[in-house]
């Protein structure tokens, strides 16, 4: 029998503020953290939250991760000390791109002053595993620690990987999440060159007027623990990671395969892994990027995986309408919001949704938050989707508390 994996801590830094509660509550209240076409973490002041050494040594993506991890670890009740053998605690922090701010700064130094003036912190700050290394060192987590990278599905892949790590018995707990900080000239220039960013600066997933994604930054972190160990220490359980499925389109570098066949399969795999049928899905936290192609392909995949009839009755919303697209952090921050949704049983809306698109014909929770309705006393269950450049598809199933 598979070991069960529960969620005991949550943390987030997003354009809606510093904290998991502020993320969920502001989104559910219909507030948007996007300003001037970008989802910047304007409330995040590294020097107030981190030591001088941490600020100097960490790229912004790792700074965001460390602050979100601190919140999740305190939330799990680990701040008085680790509840398990440190060798049994892993740390996986995904990033789509890594420390691009550091690379840009050091490239300026290289060009202007020569290679001998480059900082010895250049590589260790920009490396994609820097955030996992920082969290592992700060908290003494001595199990497996590394990063995973799959562009915009990185955060979700990290959670899937952590789930398997605990299920397989390689760890009894994992501090897991994703972080991204690419609001830089390279980030904007590259995404603009692809014509992926919204020229109007509006993130309105599934709306007929959608014209691209709005780039955001941030981090989402979760503490996952093996269920019996968590119960033994009397941990407060916030929810459960109950299923994971992942596939690849093998189709195109940036465009999703239009029929959504592989994405459908990822959702089906996650549902099978969780042992649930379509009638047990109460909510879908969509990838919903606000690009023409993603939102149509995702809609097609949801319909194929759950059946059209059932898919029409499931409320679906996209957090990217409130925060923009956190890229490699998206799957993790959206997991945090999904767990909070299942706890509160209030579904936050897809902000800005107004004009239906024939290709996106499901219930995207327009307007305002609404109660999550349960049929038969079972615990509330949600799917969170993440899809990525490269054709990567990830679906996660989360289960909330029974009451």
């Amino acid at each position, binding site marked *: 029998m598979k070991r069960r994996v529960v969620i005991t801590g949550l943390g987030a830094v997003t354009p809606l503020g510093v904290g998991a509660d502020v993320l969920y509550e502001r989104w559910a209240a219909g507030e948007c953290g996007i300003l001037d076409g970008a989802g910047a973490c304007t409330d995040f002041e590294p020097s107030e939250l981190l*030591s*001088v050494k941490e600020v*100097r040594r960490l790229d912004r993506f790792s700074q965001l991760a460390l602050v979100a991890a601190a919140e999740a670890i305190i939330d799990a009740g680990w701040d008085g000390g680790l509840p398990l053998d440190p060798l049994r605690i892993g740390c996986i922090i995904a990033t789509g791109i890594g420390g691009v701010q550091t690379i840009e700064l050091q490239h300026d130094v290289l060009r202007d002053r020569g290679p001998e003036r480059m900082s*010895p912190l250049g590589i260790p700050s920009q490396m994609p595993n820097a955030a996992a290394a920082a969290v592992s060192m700060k908290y003494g987590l001595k199990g497996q620690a590394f990063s995973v990278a799959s562009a915009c599905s990185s955060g979700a892949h990290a959670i899937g990987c952590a789930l398997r790590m605990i299920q397989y018995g390689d760890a009894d707990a994992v501090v897991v999440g994703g972080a991204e900080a690419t609001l830089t000239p390279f980030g904007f220039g590259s995404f603009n060159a692809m014509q992926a960013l919204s020229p109007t600066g509006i993130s309105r997933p599934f709306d007929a007027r959608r014209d691209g994604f709005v780039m955001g930054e941030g981090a989402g972190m979760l503490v996952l623990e093996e269920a019996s160990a968590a119960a033994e220490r009397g941990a407060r359980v916030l929810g459960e990671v109950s299923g994971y499925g992942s596939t690849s389109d093998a189709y195109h570098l940036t465009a999703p395969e239009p029929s959504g066949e592989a994405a459908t399969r990822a959702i089906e795999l996650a549902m099978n892994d969780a042992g649930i049928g379509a009638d047990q899905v109460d909510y879908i936290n969509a990838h919903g990027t606000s690009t023409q192609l993603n939102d149509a392909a995702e809609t097609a995949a949801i319909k194929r995986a759950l059946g059209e009839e059932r898919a029409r009755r499931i409320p679906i919303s996209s957090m990217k309408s409130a925060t923009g697209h956190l890229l490699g952090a998206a799957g993790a921050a959206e997991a945090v919001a999904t767990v909070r949704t299942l706890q509160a049983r209030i579904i936050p809306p897809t902000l800005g949704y107004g004009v239906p698109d024939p290709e996106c014909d499901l219930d995207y929770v327009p307007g305002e938050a609404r109660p999550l309705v349960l049929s038969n006393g079972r615990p509330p269950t949600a799917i969170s989707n993440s899809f990525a450049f490269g054709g990567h598809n990830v679906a996660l199933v989360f289960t909330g508390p029974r009451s």
Partner: protein
Amino acid sequence: MATVTAEQVEGRVVETLASFGPDADQISRGSTFEELDIDSLDLVELAQVVEDDYGVVLKGEDMKELKTVGDAIDLIVSRAE
């Protein structure tokens, strides 16, 4: 190049080290790098500052022997003369 005084070097070294993390008032000639949590990466950055300011080139093998802030100041002053 104008003569550099030990006081000038000390002031610059303390200021630079303080920018790496420890409080300036915690740093004295007798402080060890270990107790200040200054590691080899910090010392490479210190060497870059020293080279810019005093034209003194400090290599890895020079830095390896340094245990205290005073050791670093003395080495820089002796090389700058």
